């Protein structure tokens, strides 16, 4: 996984860092907070992934069974990773994560079906990128299934550019800070 990736020269942003609140397109008041390492946050995330529609899985994640969900969350909620949670009161509506990969980070975002198409993904990814930029993350990449036009559109809108179109999945990348000179 350590082969060279191309990143845009241009820095994207600035993006606002969490915590922040917004009203979604169906008038729900949503809150965005960084994952605080608490048991409560983790259990709320487990519940979101238990409720996740399997047809929205991508490249094997989120996994389908509770034990696998927990093992997977243990990896992406570890100290080196950056996580932002979208809350509707006590319910997790969405979750976005940055996982270290050499000198860059891999990004993924998940929005629960009942909360899709309400603009939440846009707020969530922007606030994760803001949180990343505030924590000195320079470069971020992701893969997305090429037929997933809404997701590709969202990534392009916030500044991701296609970095590799030769695989099964489309690879996209964004820059949050310039390389040190």
């Amino acid at each position, binding site marked *: 996984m350590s082969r060279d990736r191309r990143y845009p020269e241009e820095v994207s942003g600035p993006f606002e860092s969490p915590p922040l609140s917004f009203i979604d397109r169906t008038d729900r008041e949503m809150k965005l907070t960084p994952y605080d390492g608490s048991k409560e946050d983790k259990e709320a995330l487990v519940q979101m992934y238990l409720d996740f529609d399997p047809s929205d899985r991508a*490249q094997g994640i989120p996994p389908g069974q509770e034990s696998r969900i927990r093992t997977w969350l243990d990896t*992406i909620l570890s100290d080196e990773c950056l996580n932002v949670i979208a809350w509707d009161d006590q319910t997790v509506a969405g979750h976005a994560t940055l*996982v*270290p*990969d050499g000198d860059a980070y891999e990004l993924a975002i998940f929005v629960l079906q009942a909360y899709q198409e309400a603009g939440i993904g846009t707020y969530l990814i922007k606030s994760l990128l803001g949180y990343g930029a505030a924590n000195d993350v320079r470069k971020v990449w992701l893969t997305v299934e090429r037929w997933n036009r809404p997701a590709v559109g969202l990534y392009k809108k916030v500044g991701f550019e296609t970095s590799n179109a*030769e*695989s*099964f999945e489309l690879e996209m990348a964004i820059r949050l800070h310039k390389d040190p000179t």
Partner: protein
Amino acid sequence: MKVLLGIGGADDSIKALQKTIDRATATNDELTVAIVENPNADRTPNEVEDAVQKYLDEAKLSATIRHVEGDPGSRLVDIAETEGYEEIVLGGGQTSPMGKIQIGQIAEFVLLNSHKTVTLVR
């Protein structure tokens, strides 16, 4: 069954090797291990051959080992179709730091072009 296992030197290939040898031991499959040149792999073809021999010895299984030169995907499909194999077995892909499964270019080619059954080992 006559099985063609195609492996490069990536981690998923080694996992496919172990599982395929276990299965061949249980089912008496006639196994050929084709070692291909995968420029993205962490191991050289000779290191892969050593690993293959080691697992075969441990399982007390005999299998044909051959080195395949040229484009891995098209060569595997060609060998399977012209030499009477019933199944091609390949590694099931690498996993990103996030845990996303990513299918390699060899598997992609074989899946789309093979007229024989293809198994990806997870």
